[in-house]
């Protein structure tokens, strides 16, 4: 299969869906003429024109409201919030409008929009451009939260998100845009919901999402060298969560490490650890190990930044500690 970069895979999904469905619209800061600061929307303006591909002012509340209103009227907007760090600016629109209206209005409207954004630690983007805030949106009923880890999923999940009848918060990772991998040509749908077992193993389950999947896979390599067979689960969708795959794995391996790039305290890892401890209680041979970012603002300086989030070595150490 031909290989694409994660960013290109995303772009292909946008392009194919815009060709397929005239209701699909793309807007956000710097997405049109420039093609997005990560170039995910490159050349879409040239192909689809200024009515469907729009640069907006710097106005995150308006961007999110645009998506809600246009979706309510039958369009399928794909809005971009440049960094997940700016998502707090439109959380009112997400938690008080997007989450509420379809259900509270008794299903009388649908809101089929996608809010694309990206998070995570990159190279020195500092405290206001490096956060992982998926725990917040995953808490909100009515939203779906998707975080692809591979180029193929980036394409397949974005395609599914655009066709989905519900609001989807689609969180990319700045340090994944340049990763390459095989991506199917033409229509490629990865359903929202199911997790993927990226590597089978019987000794311990490593649960991760987004870039942490790559770290977990590297940890599995380290562990394999020591004779420990780790199973790696890529959640892909955080809400609704694929509890079945998660729990089935832990019931087999009896041990779990959950990894999330967001702050550890009250983070998404807590949901994973709690769910596993509830649903696999009798199967667990050791406490679930939970890794997350240090509970501090993300610092700029490299040694501090690097220390602030989980990595393969720390994941492997956590796995060893549940086996020890």
């Amino acid at each position, binding site marked *: 299969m031909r290989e694409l970069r994660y960013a290109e895979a995303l772009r292909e999904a946008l392009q194919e869906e815009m060709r397929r469905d005239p209701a699909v619209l793309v807007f956000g800061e710097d997405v049109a003429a420039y093609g997005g600061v990560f170039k995910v929307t490159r050349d879409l303006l040239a192909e689809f024109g200024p009515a469907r591909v729009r640069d907006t002012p710097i106005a995150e*509340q308006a961007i999110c*409201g*645009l998506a809600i209103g*246009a979706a*309510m009227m039958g369009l399928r907007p794909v809005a971009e919030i440049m960094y997940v760090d700016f998502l707090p600016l439109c959380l009112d629109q997400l938690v*008080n409008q997007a989450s509420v209206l379809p259900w509270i*209005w008794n*299903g*009388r409207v649908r809101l089929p929009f996608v809010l694309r954004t990206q998070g995570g630690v990159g190279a020195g983007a500092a405290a206001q451009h490096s956060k992982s805030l998926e725990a917040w949106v995953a808490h909100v009923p009515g939203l779906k939260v998707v975080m692809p880890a591979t180029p193929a999923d980036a394409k397949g999940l974005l395609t599914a998100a655009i066709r989905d009848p519900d609001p989807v918060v689609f969180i990319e990772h700045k340090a994944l845009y340049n990763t390459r991998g095989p991506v199917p040509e033409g229509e490629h749908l990865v359903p*929202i919901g199911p997790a993927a077992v990226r590597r089978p193993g019987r000794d311990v389950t490593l649960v991760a999402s987004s870039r942490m999947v790559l770290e977990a896979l590297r940890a599995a390599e380290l562990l394999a060298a020591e004779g420990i067979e780790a199973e790696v689960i890529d959640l892909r969708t955080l809400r609704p969560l694929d509890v079945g795959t998660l729990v089935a794995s832990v019931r087999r391996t009896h041990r779990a490490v959950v990894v999330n790039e967001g702050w550890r305290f009250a983070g998404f890892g807590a949901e994973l650890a709690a769910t596993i401890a509830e649903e696999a209680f009798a199967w667990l041979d050791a406490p679930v190990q939970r890794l997350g970012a240090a509970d501090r603002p993300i610092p700029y300086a490299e040694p501090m930044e690097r220390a602030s989030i989980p990595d393969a070595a720390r994941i492997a150490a956590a796995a060893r500690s549940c086996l020890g």
Partner: protein
Amino acid sequence: MLNRPGLGELREMYRRMVLVRRLEEELGRLHREGRTRGPIHRCDGQEAVGIGATAALEREDLVTSTHRGHAHHVGKGVPLGPLVAEILGRATGSCGGRAGHMLVADPEVGLLGGCGIVGGMLPVAVGQALAFQVRGEPRVVCAFLGDGAAQIGAAHEAMNLAGLWRLPVVFLIEANGFGLTVPTAAQSAVNELAIRAAGYAMPGRTVDGNDVRAVFAAVAEAAARARRAEGPSLIEARTFRLEGFSTSDLGGYRDPAELAAWRARDPIARLRGELLPELGESALLALEGEAERELARALEAALAAPPPPAETLAAPEYASEAGARGETAGA
């Protein structure tokens, strides 16, 4: 639509204003009897704004409303039975009792919809208007907001975007002199909010919000402009809230003389006075009686209807799950 309402239109506006006033009064009574839930936001004294504005719209136009929306609901044509039932949280309500009085919506008549977050629907209204523009539909969104709401960030972002993209939105400020208890002079750096329109490249004007003809004319003109793809407008309708900010209001923050002065300018009495020579007392009494009976029927039916059962909470979270009605307003 002409900018001057005809007699038939005025007659209907009068009927609706009376209907809204009676609704507010009945809700006040039910509240005192302990038969309502939550803070209900009456609009007594402001009926000319909501009724006059919605009368100047077409059925396919949209209205985004606020926490104080009864005149918008009635004006935009939400059937009274389901409206009252929703306000009272019944299974027969327009949203099955899930929404309640602050969040009433009805896609069939273009009320999309109520909102208890001040300014919360303004960005949404802009998105609705974007859909009309993209599809080339000659439809307009009338976005109501309070004079308090005009100070919130979302109002700025929404107005700038509407002005920039020339979206078909009529921003209609119901300037009733207060937020909840804080006078507008203690909320806004400027007395006349309409002047801010210049900062968004849209026309702005102030109208007498207790004069239903003036409101109608201003909205009709702004809607026509929007339909001609000339972009949004800002209208500031000066009015006054005659009752509490909600049924929770404990009072004590208003000047009785000011209140009395505004009571003397009641928009319903004013329109009645204007219609009297044209329609005659008995026709007006008949109209009022009709409104009262319609309301009584709706109230009686709502009060007799059951609330939605607790099990309804298990209704699917997502439209993607089976069973969601998925009526789309855009169709």
